[in-house]
């Protein structure tokens, strides 16, 4: 009888909203949009969790966070303990709490979601990680005795940082080689400040360094040293996590006109180089008045919302299918809509028009309709004959995807790649066609999510440990 009453009470608590910056205000700054839970709200939300005996959420998480346990700790007011539970399996909880697509993972399988709203796992994760960071009481786990084996990780993005954290905890000497001047990969060059403050990434990288991970920046593997040279230097295993950091252009006339960026360049200038603070920072960026972003993914949403914050009068998403097929998270599309982004759907650019002095001034587009489903299962867009029209633009950001960066595969004999340049691995272990060389993240899967790259790092850590410890 008593349990029944308790249960009923729990179901009455609605999913707690997270306060956000008002859209009219936030498009004038680069500060974070969602503001996080207060302690009271977090406890209330945590109490919604019914602590399933057989929780589906843990299996729904690529890095297997013990979700009910950390939520129980929050419900009990033990916020630091919640953070510790998170960090046992996830080296980057403050990041994941912000950028994971929880709606497709842990929250999708939450039992409460069957009849109502699932527990806000992501918001709670963010709360616990932020709480710990704010207190400054970051505790380190007991260090393992060094096992005398050396691991080289190529790329300091989410996948590389995850494996580095996991292996250092097992006693390995881990060095991460990062091509750029800051660690974080897409977390620092790609995802904007208003979605993931860079101070948070820095704090998570700091934590890994405190655990003993060494990070060498400005080190482009394939140039400063090849994979073979790393082995010659005494590394026992190598993990390649260089991402899918090569931009795809559409190869249409006028694409090299001034004012046309790849999303990678636009976001790298703004995020990594802080061009939004130009001229305080030296790197410039074009602050367009009429900005078109081509594509419908998260990178397109990040780009178009950056354009608004850089002062665009008109910021367009130009996408060849409809909102239903957009790969971006619903939350991101919703934020973009709230902020006044104009969506030009079933539209595809076919040519850029020059102003006569080398700058883009217009974009000729064609209208599309949806035809039969294609390989991705989505209905494929088909151009409508004679439906061309011109949109006035002075800046264009091409966000139609990325491809494999060729530097590491090209300099590593015996490392096999597929037709599209991605490294071939055996199953989930990340094992490549070269002994002792493992790979994971976008360089294996093609552009995916932060958490999937982290999951790959976690699995490869197990595989490398098994390989080197002979287990």
């Amino acid at each position, binding site marked *: 009888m008593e349990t029944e009453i308790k249960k009923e009470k729990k179901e009455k608590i609605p999913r707690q909203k997270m306060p956000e910056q008002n859209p009219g205000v936030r498009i004038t700054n680069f500060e974070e949009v969602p503001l996080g839970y207060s302690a009271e709200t977090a406890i209330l939300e945590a109490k919604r969790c019914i602590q399933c005996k057989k929780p589906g959420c843990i299996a729904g998480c690529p890095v297997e966070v013990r979700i009910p346990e950390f939520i129980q700790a929050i419900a009990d007011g033990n916020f630091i303990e919640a953070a510790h539970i998170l960090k046992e399996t996830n080296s980057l909880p403050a990041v994941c709490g912000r950028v994971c697509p929880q709606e497709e993972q842990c929250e999708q399988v939450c039992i409460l979601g069957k009849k109502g709203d699932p527990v806000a796992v992501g918001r709670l994760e963010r709360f616990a990680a932020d709480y710990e960071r704010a207190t400054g009481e970051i505790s380190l786990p007991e260090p393992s005795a060094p096992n005398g084996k050396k691991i080289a990780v190529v790329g300091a993005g989410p996948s590389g940082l995850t494996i580095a954290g996991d292996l250092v905890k097992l006693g390995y000497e881990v060095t991460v080689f990062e091509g750029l001047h800051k660690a974080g990969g897409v977390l620092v060059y790609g995802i904007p400040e208003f979605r993931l403050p860079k101070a948070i990434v820095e704090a998570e990288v700091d934590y890994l360094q405190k655990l003993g991970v060494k990070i060498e920046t400005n080190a482009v593997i394939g140039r400063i040293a090849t994979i073979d040279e790393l082995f010659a230097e005494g590394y026992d295993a190598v993990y390649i996590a260089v991402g899918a950091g090569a931009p795809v252009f559409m190869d249409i006339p006028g694409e090299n006109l001034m*004012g046309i960026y790849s999303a990678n*360049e636009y976001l790298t200038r703004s995020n990594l*180089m802080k061009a939004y603070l*130009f*001229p305080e920072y030296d790197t*410039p960026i074009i602050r367009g008045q009429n900005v078109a972003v081509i594509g419908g993914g998260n990178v397109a949403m990040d780009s178009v919302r950056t354009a608004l914050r850089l002062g665009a009068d008109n910021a367009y998403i130009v996408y060849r299918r409809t909102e239903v097929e957009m790969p971006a998270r619903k939350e991101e599309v919703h934020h973009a809509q709230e902020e006044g982004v104009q969506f030009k759907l079933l539209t595809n650019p076919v040519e850029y028009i020059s102003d006569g002095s080398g700058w883009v001034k217009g974009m000729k587009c064609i209208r599309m309709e949806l035809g039969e489903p294609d390989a991705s299962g989505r209905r494929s867009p088909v151009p409508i004959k004679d439906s061309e029209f011109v949109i006035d633009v002075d800046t264009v950001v091409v966000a139609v995807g990325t491809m494999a960066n060729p530097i590491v595969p090209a300099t590593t004999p015996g490392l096999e790649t597929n037709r599209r340049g991605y490294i071939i691995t055996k199953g989930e272990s990340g094992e490549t066609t070269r002994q002792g060389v493992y790979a994971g993240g976008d360089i294996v899967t093609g552009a995916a999510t932060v958490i999937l790259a982290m999951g790959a790092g976690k699995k490869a850590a197990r595989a490398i440990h098994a390989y080197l410890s002979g287990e």
Partner: protein
Amino acid sequence: MNKITEKVALSENVVKMVLEAPAIARKRKAGQFVVLIANEKGERIPLTIVDSDPKKGTITVIFQIVGKTTAVMAKMKVGDSIRDVQGPLGNPTDVHKVGQVVCIGGGVGVGVVYPLAAALKQAGNQVISIIGARTKELLILEEEMKQVSDRLIVTTDDGSYGFHGFVSTVLQNLIDQGEKIAEVFAIGPVPMMKVIANLTRPYGIKTVVSLNPIMVDATGMCGACRVSVDGKTKFTCVDGPEFDGHQVDFDLLTSRLRMYCDQESIAYEKHRCGWNGN
């Protein structure tokens, strides 16, 4: 952090800097470059590695003061440190013995052609070098070029030193005199490279140019440095920096180099927009 161990003003606006970068010094080959970031707020500046000393663990770069970041770098002293040095980047020059080659450098481009001339000489080629500047005071690396060349011809646009005229005129004279030229390497301001490429095309002399577009990451990630070669888009940082001069769209390169002129004047970078000139 990379300490500055030597700094020399080669001319009013051109600085030579020797930096501690042991790993790069060991690894680099002729034709490759580094990206420097002077300080926390600095831009990423691509510069050719002019020379290296693997024993001392140093590399040499030469830059022209063309904007805010290079002006800041020019004010740094021996003992100060450049915050970040990333490299070596780009593909090394394809150096092999072909016979007689002509190495042409204009303005600060002499600093870029110098390591090529040295490597080509080392590989057993006959090296004729032509280096030019607007006026005598702007000429750089004459002595160094002399040491790696079988013959060195110096030109100035105003006739204040050496041959009065352009490097292209000297090259035309060599061709007219019947010199056998297997390959030409031409590095300098875009208009100069364009003129040289147009000059050698009818003779079918292979002409290699090294391009200097605007770059950001310099690892093939952003596409800022895209150029058109034989009608196809290439990324200078990973596909270059050297390309077949007969196939490069120099007008597109000239245009794209102007992309940030307005911003740079905001940052008091008035000189920057002349950076493709000497």
